C-alpha cells in the first residue's frame, strides 16, 4: 500500500491533507480466484499423494488464508504517539491423520528442551498479490511440515493413551454437511486523518485531570478477508471488520496504590462507533471516576449481598457463562505433571449439562445471526463460523438449566455435532459464544429498593455495588505452556476483581471504594442470584489474546443482578512510591 509513503511526504511538507484509504476487497472471489485455485490444486495433490511410506495419508485438510489490513494509532495528551499501517497474509493448515474418532488433535506433547513458539502448518508472509504459483509454493511447504508433525503427534498420543491406560471415548472430530458461503466484497473508505484527529481530541481530555498520571487512547481498525477450503467440501470467503477505541488512564492514590480505568468502544465499521462527542463524554466520565477513586477509602473485607450493574453484570455473565462454556474440550497431556500445572480457566461448565447453573427464572441464548437486540447493536455476529459451519441460534440455559454448549467440530462428552460456534483464535479452533443474551422473567423495577431491603434484613449498614470489573483475558493453553516453562504458574481469577465499586447505604447514599477482590467463588455462584433488574446492558467488546495477537468480537447482554452473599477480601495491592516531581503540565500551573 502506498498510503504510508503519502503520509510521510505530506507530513514533511506540513500541508494539511485528508487521506482516503480505500480498502478494496479483491474482485469477487469466484472459483477462478488464484487463491482458491492454489488451495484447491494443492489439496487435490495432497489428499491423493501425500503420505510417508509406512503411514496413512491425511484424512482431513483445511486451508485458511487470512488477509489482514490493520491500522493502529495511539494518542497521548493530545499528540500522536504512533500511527502504523500493516498488511499481511498468513496461511494456517489444519491437517489431521488417523480418523474422525481418533486423530492427532486434542493432545499436548511435552516440549523436549524448550518451548517453541513456532507452530507447524503456519506460514506468515504469504504473497500479498494473488499469485497462484507463489501461494501454492507456500501451501505445499506448510502442508508437508504439518503432515509430518501430525504423524509424529498421533504416534505420541497413541503411546500416551496406552501408557496412561486412558479410555478416551469422545471422538476428535465431527462430520458436517458441506457448506458454501461467499460473501460479497466490501469497500471501506477510511479517513485516517479524521481518526488521528479524533484520537488526539479524545486523548487531550486528560489535560483537565491533574490527578491522572498517564493516559492514552488507542484506535485500531482491522479488515480481514478469510479464504477457507477443506477436504470435506466446505468453502467460504468472509470479511471480518473490527473497529475499536480504548481509552485508558493510570494514577496512584496518595498512599501509592496504582489505579487504572478504561473505557472501550467497539463496532465493525468505523461508522458503528458512537459519535465523537459521546465518546468524549464517556471518556470524561471514566476520568472523573478515576480521579474520585484516588481519594476513595479502601475496603478491607466484605461479606454480604453484591449488586452487579451496568457493565459489571454483562462482565459477570461473560466470566462465568461465556468462559465456562468456551474452549470446553480438555486435551490429553503427554506429561501428567504438565496437566496438573494447567489451570482450567475456561470450559468449567461443560460437565454441567442438564444441571442448574442459574435460578429458574433465567434463560441464556447465543445467536450469531443477531446484529441487534432491543434496538441495541450487537457485535458478535457472523454468517458462517470459522470451520465453514452455518451458526444456529442456541438456547444454552432454560429455566436455569444448562441445555447445550456452543460447539465447534470438536465434540465433547454428550455433544457430538457442531452448531456453528467454532472460532479461530490463538492459531486454533475453539468453541466460543458470539452474542450471549441473558434474560430473566422476574425482573423488578424497584431493583435498588430490593437491594436495600436485603441490607436491612441482614442488618448491614451498606452493601457493595459493582459497575465495572477489571476484566482479565484468561490465558490460552499455548500461553500457559510458555509461562509454565518460564517458571511461573498462570492463573486468572474466576471473576476478575472490581474496577469500579461503591458502598450503597441503607439511606441510599453512595460512596466509592477500592481494594476488594472476590474470594471463594465457584462456577455455581450464579445460582445465588436473588433478583434481576429491568435494565439490560450490552457489552460489545473485542476478546483479544495478547499472547497470540488474535481476537474475537463478542457481545454480552444482561440485566443487573444481585447475588445474595459473596465474600470479598482485600486485593492486597502493593503501594509504590509516588512520583518525586509534579507532572510537567500540571506542575507549571
Amino acid at each position, binding site marked *: 500500500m502506498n498510503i504510508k509513503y503519502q503520509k510521510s511526504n505530506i507530513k514533511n511538507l506540513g500541508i494539511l491533507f485528508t487521506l482516503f484509504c480505500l480498502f478494496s476487497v479483491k474482485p469477487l472471489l469466484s472459483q477462478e480466484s488464484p487463491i482458491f485455485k492454489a488451495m484447491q490444486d494443492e489439496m487435490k*495433490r495432497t489428499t491423493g499423494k501425500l503420505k510417508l511410506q509406512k503411514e496413512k495419508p491425511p484424512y482431513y485438510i483445511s486451508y485458511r488464508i487470512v488477509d489482514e489490513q490493520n491500522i493502529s494509532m495511539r494518542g497521548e*495528551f*493530545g499528540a500522536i504517539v504512533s500511527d502504523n*499501517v500493516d498488511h499481511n497474509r498468513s496461511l494456517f493448515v489444519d491437517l489431521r491423520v488417523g480418523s474422525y474418532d481418533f486423530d492427532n488433535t486434542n493432545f499436548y506433547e511435552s516440549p523436549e528442551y524448550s518451548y517453541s513458539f513456532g507452530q507447524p502448518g503456519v506460514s506468515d508472509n504469504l504473497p500479498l498479490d494473488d499469485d497462484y504459483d507463489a501461494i501454492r509454493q507456500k501451501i505445499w511447504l506448510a502442508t508437508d511440515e504439518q503432515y509430518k508433525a501430525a504423524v509424529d503427534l498421533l504416534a505420541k498420543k497413541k503411546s500416551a493413551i496406552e501408557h496412561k491406560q486412558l479410555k478416551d471415548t469422545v471422538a476428535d472430530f465431527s462430520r458436517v454437511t458441506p457448506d458454501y458461503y461467499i460473501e460479497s466484497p466490501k469497500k471501506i473508505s477510511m479517513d485516517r486523518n479524521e481518526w488521528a484527529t479524533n484520537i488526539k481530541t479524545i486523548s487531550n481530555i486528560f489535560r483537565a485531570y491533574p490527578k491522572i498520571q498517564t493516559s492514552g487512547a488507542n484506535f485500531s481498525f482491522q479488515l480481514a478477508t478469510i479464504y477457507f477450503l477443506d477436504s470435506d467440501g466446505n468453502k467460504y470467503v468472509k470479511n471480518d471488520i473490527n473497529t475499536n477505541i480504548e481509552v485508558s488512564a493510570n494514577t496512584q492514590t496518595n498512599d501509592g496504590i496504582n489505579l487504572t480505568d478504561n473505557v472501550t468502544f467497539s463496532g465493525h465499521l468505523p461508522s458503528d462507533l458512537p459519535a465523537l462527542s459521546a465518546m468524549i463524554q464517556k471518556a470524561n466520565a471514566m476520568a472523573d471516576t478515576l480521579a474520585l477513586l484516588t481519594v476513595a477509602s479502601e475496603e478491607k473485607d466484605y461479606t454480604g449481598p453484591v449488586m452487579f450493574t451496568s457493565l459489571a453484570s454483562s462482565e459477570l455473565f461473560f466470566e462465568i457463562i461465556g468462559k465456562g462454556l468456551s474452549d470446553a474440550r480438555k486435551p490429553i497431556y503427554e506429561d501428567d505433571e504438565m496437566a496438573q500445572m494447567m489451570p482450567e480457566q475456561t470450559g468449567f461448565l461443560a460437565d454441567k449439562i442438564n444441571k442448574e447453573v442459574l435460578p429458574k427464572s433465567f434463560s441464556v441464548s447465543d445467536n450469531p445471526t443477531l446484529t441487534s437486540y432491543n434496538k441495541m447493536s450487537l457485535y458478535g455476529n457472523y454468517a458462517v463460523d470459522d470451520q465453514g459451519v452455518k451458526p444456529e441460534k442456541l438456547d444454552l440455559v432454560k429455566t436455569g438449566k444448562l441445555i447445550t454448549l456452543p460447539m465447534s467440530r470438536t465434540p465433547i462428552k454428550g455433544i457430538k455435532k457442531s452448531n456453528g460456534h467454532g472460532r479461530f483464535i490463538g492459531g486454533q479452533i475453539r468453541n466460543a459464544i458470539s452474542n450471549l443474551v441473558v434474560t430473566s422473567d422476574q425482573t423488578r423495577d424497584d431493583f435498588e429498593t430490593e437491594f436495600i431491603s436485603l441490607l436491612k434484613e441482614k442488618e448491614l449498614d451498606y452493601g457493595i455495588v459493582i459497575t465495572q470489573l477489571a476484566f482479565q483475558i484468561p490465558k490460552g493453553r499455548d500461553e500457559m505452556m510458555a509461562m509454565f516453562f518460564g517458571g511461573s504458574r498462570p492463573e486468572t481469577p474466576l471473576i476478575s476483581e472490581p474496577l469500579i465499586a461503591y458502598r450503597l447505604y441503607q439511606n441510599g447514599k453512595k460512596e466509592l471504594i477500592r481494594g476488594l477482590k472476590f474470594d471463594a467463588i465457584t462456577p455455581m455462584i450464579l445460582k445465588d442470584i436473588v433478583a434481576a433488574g429491568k435494565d439490560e446492558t450490552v457489552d460489545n467488546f473485542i476478546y483479544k489474546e495478547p499472547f497470540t495477537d488474535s481476537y474475537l468480537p463478542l457481545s454480552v447482554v444482561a440485566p443487573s443482578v444481585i447475588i445474595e452473599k459473596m465474600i470479598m477480601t482485600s486485593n492486597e495491592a502493593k503501594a509504590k512510591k509516588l512520583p518525586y516531581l509534579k507532572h510537567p*503540565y500540571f506542575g507549571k500551573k
Partner: protein
Amino acid sequence: MSKYKLIVMVLLTVTALVFAQGNQLLTIMENELNRSFQGLKNTGKEPLYFLQYEINSEDIITISASYGTIITNSHNENRYLSVDARVGSYKLDNTHELRGSSGFGGFDFYNSSFERIPIDNDEFAIREVLWKATDGEFKKAQERIMKVRSEKETKVAEEDTSADFSKSNKEIYTGTETKATLGDTNWTNRIKELSKIFKAYPWIYNSSITITARGNTQYLVNTGGTRIVDGTNRYRITIYADTKSDDGMNLYLFRPFFSYTEDGLPSDVMIRLAIDNLINDLSALRTAPLVDPYSGPAILDNQAAAVYFHEIFGHRIEGHRQKLEREGQTFKDKVGKQILPDFLSVYDDATMQSFNGRDLNGYYKFDDEGVKSQRVTVVENGILKNFLMTRSPIEGFLASNGHARRSYGNKVVSRQGNLIVESKNQVSYDSLKKLLISECKKQNKPYGLIFKDIAGGFTATGRGGTQAFNVTPLLVRRIYQDGHEEVVRGVNVVGTPLVSFSKILVTGDDNAIFNGTCGAESGMVPVSAVAPSILTAEMEVEKKVKEQEKLPILPSPLGGAK
C-alpha cells in the same frame, strides 16, 4: 511565478520546517531534563548526579518480494526514549556491577525499558513520558545503589577499582532530522521482477529480495551540557534463499548490499549477478558431501575473515569485558604485549563512512553517551595498545573513546563500530591458495579448507563457560593438494581465540567489507568489519547439528521432480 521558483520555495520551507522541528524536540527534552535534574538532584537518599535523555526516531520502509509478488510492504515511524539516571558519584554509582545478581547466564538484567515518545512535537505530551520514565529510572537507581553498597560491604574487594563514570567533553551538534525515503518509485516493481528469477529453481523452498530504507535520528541531551541532533539514512538490499540437502539438512545463503544513499544501491544487473551467484552456491551446497571433523590449514576469504575478527577478536577488546568480574578478561593483562602476529594491526574507526569507496555500516558521529566517535588503534604490529571505551573507566584507561553503543531501551556497553584489520604481510589471493596447498603438504593433510561465507556466530567471553567461539560458515570448499576444489557442508568452526590468532601465517591483499548488525547485551547495533583473506596453519571444524526433518514428500508445485 515560474515553476522553478516554486520548487525552490517549497524546498526552503521543507528545510526550515525540519530544522525548526529538530530544535523543537531537543528544546522539549532540554526543558524536562533541566526541571528533572533540578528537582531530583537532592531529593533521594543518594544524589542524582547525571541525567541523560536519548530519543531515537526510527522511520523504516521495508518492501520484500518473493516469486514475483510482494510479501511485505510496510512503513513505520516510531520514536523511542532511553533514560540514563546516575545516582551516587562518579566514583561509585548505581550502574556498578552487581556480582551476586541473579541474572540469567551471568547477565545482569539492569536494563531500562524503553518508552514510546509521541511523533508529534507536542511539548507536554512528550514531557509527560519523559517525566514518568525519569521518575521510574530514578527510583530504580536509588534501589540499585543500595544493593551496590551492601555488596561492597559483604563481598571481597574487586580486582579493578576504577570509577564507574568518567567526565567527558560537552558536545553541541545540530545535524538534520531525517526520514526514510525511497526516491525511485519503481523499487516495488524492480524487486518483484528480480524475485521472479527463483521461479526457475523449484528446489529452492523459500526465497526473497528485501529492500529496507531507514531514516534514524538521534536526539541526545544530558546534564553535562551535550546537545545532539544527528540523522542518518541507511539503505539495504538482501537476497535470501533456502533449501534442504537430500539428507534433510537446512541450507540457506544470503547476500546483503548496504549504502548510505539510494544511489549507492546496486543496479539490477548487479543484483541479478548476485542472485545467480547465490543460486550457484546453494546448488553446489545441496549436493555437497558432509564435512568430517578436521583440523588443519585453512583460508578465510576476506568477508569471512572480517566476521571472524569481529566475533573472535573484536568482542574481546570491548572495554567493559576487561572490568566486569563475570567476564573472562582475555586481554586484560596483555596491554603492551603481543597478541596477534606482528604483521597485523587493528583499529576501530567509527568516523569512517566508507572504505575504498564502499560504505561502512558502523559509522556514527556520536555514541550513545554523546561522545564523539574516534579512531582507536587497538593493536599495532601485533601489540595490544588500547580498548574500545565507554565513559565507564577501566584500570589504565580512564576516558571514553566514543564506543558506548546500544539499541534503544538498553544500557550502553562498549561495542565495535568499524573494525579494520591491516596486514603488512600480504600476498595475492592466488599465492595464498598456493601457500595453503604447500601448508597441507607440510602438515601431511590431504586437503585444506576455504571459508567463503560466514553467517555469524557467537563467542563466549564470560568466565562461566569456556573461552571458546563458534562461527557458522555457510559455504566451505575443500582444496586438495592437486588444486581441485569441492564444496562441503555441515561445518562449524570451533576453537579458542588466543590459540587461533597465533596460527595466522599470512594474508591476502584483498581487503573486503562485511556490513552487518551485531547483537550483544546492549542490543542490536550496525557494525562493519574490514579484513583481507587470511591463511591460518590450523583451523578446527566440527559437524553442525543437523535437523532431523525429511525432505518434502511431494515435489515442488512450481516444477517437475528435481
